[in-house]
């Protein structure tokens, strides 16, 4: 029996010497400077954080099955949604694709041996887990009830929960983002292989470059803002307290100056992943390479001048509101360019529907819904009606879960054979992708309707007439939860028992597919010389050799 299993499944030795088996032991992982191993350290950490934040979400949805609330006191419910938001935004989504796939892939894709500053890269991970430790400590010792936005004066003067510990965790994790962004920018500028010009870079790299710009320019501002908030709370001085001349609106301006661009930190890397998946599984060159590349940069630039659309009803000047409304509409242009170009890439492509492609197609549909509903919210009059309702919740979950998480899972499935050297069962992967798509829509589409009907977000109770839609949403959440657990199981299984993948199971283009799976520690035996454009798949209609 045991020999039969050994025959069926090759032992890891068959994969040759690679970055996973080059050295053993916990020390070799905790002190590694290899960007690939650091990517996996991040993967483990954010997976943990994802399931912590996800548990809070499941509990919230269970609570909302009944109009009077099925499970918690309202105070506990407040802590649930705050924990969910804080963990998911600051400790999962912001880091998800950049810190895992970005770390793993950037040097491979540009033909480098590592990122520019490997020690700094490892330090970023230690900073990140320190931040996570503060957040988890605060969660376990009673939680925080301010919502993920930490608005004063509630957070500074009235809340009796662990605001300082959580804010400190976010502050610390922010430095991890800053250093990762810095590392990526320098790596992309200075470490490209000969012949790897800017316009031969995979679009994933352009997307992460744009993301890194936001990391570097936005994150310091949230850091200093939370620093001021913490000092106000500890020293009982009034930086943002109107009682002593401070201005709570200033906090909101500073907060959203980072936190709106942070939305693009979450979605831009996802867009980069989708460009890779769409080309690989339709076997076509991307339609309009430079438009897709520059749309990433323009999204990053525009992201910094739209924050005021979060404050239409908070007392900012009506003229500021007008300007922010117009500027917010501008984001639709580069976003639409991407969607249209992906669609045009599919046209006459030789499409196959393996699991990563299912995620990519799901992304395009869900992101489009999320983006278009964003336009409702960018227009002033509509926003006055919809602000603070479940419409907002549904809108940003279509972007952050329907967009960013779908892309993250698609990317993980696409590069999993490269990361581990092994294949996962495609059938189960497709089942999971379908479950996630169905569960997601069932969870969040009813929330658009609820919001339109006027159900406010962040409430532990609701009028009985909203129960049907809430139960639908909760049912969807349980399907979604199962959809997320299945990949955890078969991906873990595949690390040991999956069939050996070979260097390029998808027959995809890109330097990362030219080296063995898993890659050797030094990535490339010799630094490659790049002579072709990105996505140089044979054109449709041309006979394939």
């Amino acid at each position, binding site marked *: 029996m045991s020999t039969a299993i050994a025959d069926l499944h090759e032992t890891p030795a068959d994969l040759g010497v690679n970055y996973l088996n080059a050295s053993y032991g916990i020390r070799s992982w905790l002190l590694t400077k290899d960007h690939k191993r650091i990517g996996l350290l991040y993967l483990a950490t954010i997976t943990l954080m994802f399931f912590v934040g996800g548990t809070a979400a499941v509990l919230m949805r269970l609570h909302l099955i009944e109009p009077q609330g099925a499970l918690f006191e309202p105070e506990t419910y407040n802590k649930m949604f705050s924990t969910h938001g804080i963990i998911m935004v600051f400790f999962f989504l912001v880091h998800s694709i950049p810190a895992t796939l970005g770390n793993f892939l950037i*040097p491979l894709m540009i033909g*480098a*041996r*590592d*990122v*520019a*500053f*490997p020690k700094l890269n490892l330090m970023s991970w230690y900073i990140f887990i320190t931040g996570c430790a503060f957040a988890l400590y605060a969660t376990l010792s009673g939680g925080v009830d301010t919502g993920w936005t930490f608005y004063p004066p509630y957070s500074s003067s009235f809340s009796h929960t662990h605001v300082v510990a959580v804010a400190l965790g976010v502050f610390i994790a922010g430095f991890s983002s*800053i250093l990762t962004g*810095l*590392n990526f*920018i*320098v*790596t992309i*500028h*200075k*470490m490209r292989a000969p012949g790897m010009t800017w316009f031969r870079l995979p679009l994933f790299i352009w997307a992460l470059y744009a993301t890194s710009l936001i990391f*570097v*320019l*936005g*994150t*310091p*501002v949230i*850091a*200093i*803002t939370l620093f*001021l908030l913490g*000092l106000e709370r*500890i*020293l*009982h*001085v*009034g*930086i943002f307290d109107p*009682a*002593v*001349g*401070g*201005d709570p609106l*200033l906090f909101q301006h*500073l907060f959203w100056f980072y936190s709106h661009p942070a939305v693009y930190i979450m979605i831009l890397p996802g867009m980069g992943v989708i460009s890779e998946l769409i080309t690989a599984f339709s076997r076509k060159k991307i339609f309009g390479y430079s438009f897709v590349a520059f749309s990433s940069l323009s999204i990053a630039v525009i992201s910094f001048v739209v924050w005021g659309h979060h404050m239409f009803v908070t007392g900012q000047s009506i003229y500021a509101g007008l300007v922010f409304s117009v500027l917010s509409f501008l984001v639709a242009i580069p976003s639409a360019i991407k969607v249209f170009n992906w669609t045009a890439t599919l046209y006459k492509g030789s499409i196959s529907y393996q699991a990563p492609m299912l995620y990519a197609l799901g992304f395009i549909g869900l992101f489009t819904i999320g983006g278009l509903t964003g336009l409702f919210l960018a227009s002033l009059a509509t926003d006055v009606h919809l602000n603070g309702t479940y419409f907002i919740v549904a809108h940003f979950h279509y972007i952050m879960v329907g967009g960013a998480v779908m892309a993250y899972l698609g990317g993980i499935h696409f590069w999993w054979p490269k990361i581990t050297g092994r294949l996962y069962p495609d059938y189960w992967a497709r089942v999971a992708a379908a479950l996630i798509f169905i569960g997601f829509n069932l969870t969040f589409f009813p929330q658009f309707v609820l919001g339109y009907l006027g159900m406010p977000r962040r409430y532990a109770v609701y009028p009985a007439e909203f129960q049907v839609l809430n139960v639908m949403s909760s049912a969807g959440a349980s399907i979604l939860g199962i959809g997320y657990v299945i990949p955890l199981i078969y991906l873990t299984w595949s690390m040991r028992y999956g069939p050996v993948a070979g260097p390029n199971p998808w027959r995809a283009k890109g330097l990362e597919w030219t080296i063995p799976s898993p890659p050797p520690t*030094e990535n490339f035996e010799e*630094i490659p010389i790049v002579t072709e454009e990105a996505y140089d798949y044979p054109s449709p209609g041309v006979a394939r050799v």
Partner: protein
Amino acid sequence: MSELAAHGAHPPGFAHQFETVSQQRDAATLGMWVFLVTEILFFGGMFMSYTVYRALHLQAFITGSHLLEVQFGATNTAVLIVSSLTMAMGIRSAQTGKSKNQTILWLILTMLLGATFLFLKFRFEWYHDYVEGIVPGVSWHYHGSYAPGVQLFMCFYFFMTGLHALHMVVGIGILTVLIVLTARNKFSPQYYAPLEISGLYWHFVDIVWIFLFPLLYLIGGRYPGS
């Protein structure tokens, strides 16, 4: 050509992920500039808040500014500008291959000037403020005019100069490391990037002070009739 030769010889400080020494130097320099950009945004949040509140509470900010000891601020400005000069001289000395003792001397001078700045700031300014009772949240006994606005000003005074002082402390730590490395002959005219990028950092911290000094100490006119 010389770079290729240098690569073959693996000079001290050369890291495996780079192909050439100049690639490594360029990466380090770009990395420090990007870091300084993040620092500008970091301080920028404070400068932004300062600006908003100064516009809202101008008289209070002027009143608060007049509580500060301008002679110490001015002295410290001079101290920091001279320290930038000595830092630049230290880098120059390593770049042109002067004796390592000369480099170390300039670096120690820089460090001493930085320490002088901190000593003046803590001993004669912050301590004085503490005794006077104008430290918000710690020792606050101000009962003059515009009390809430003055407290806001003093908050920003302490947060901004405190954050700046923290950067000075980090800078002095970096200088200590550089002095040890110089003493161990780690640097040469071919490889002195750590000195150069630390110099960038030191100058940046000085420039922050150049903005802080007038914004905190010199607003509203110090003398009657001005």
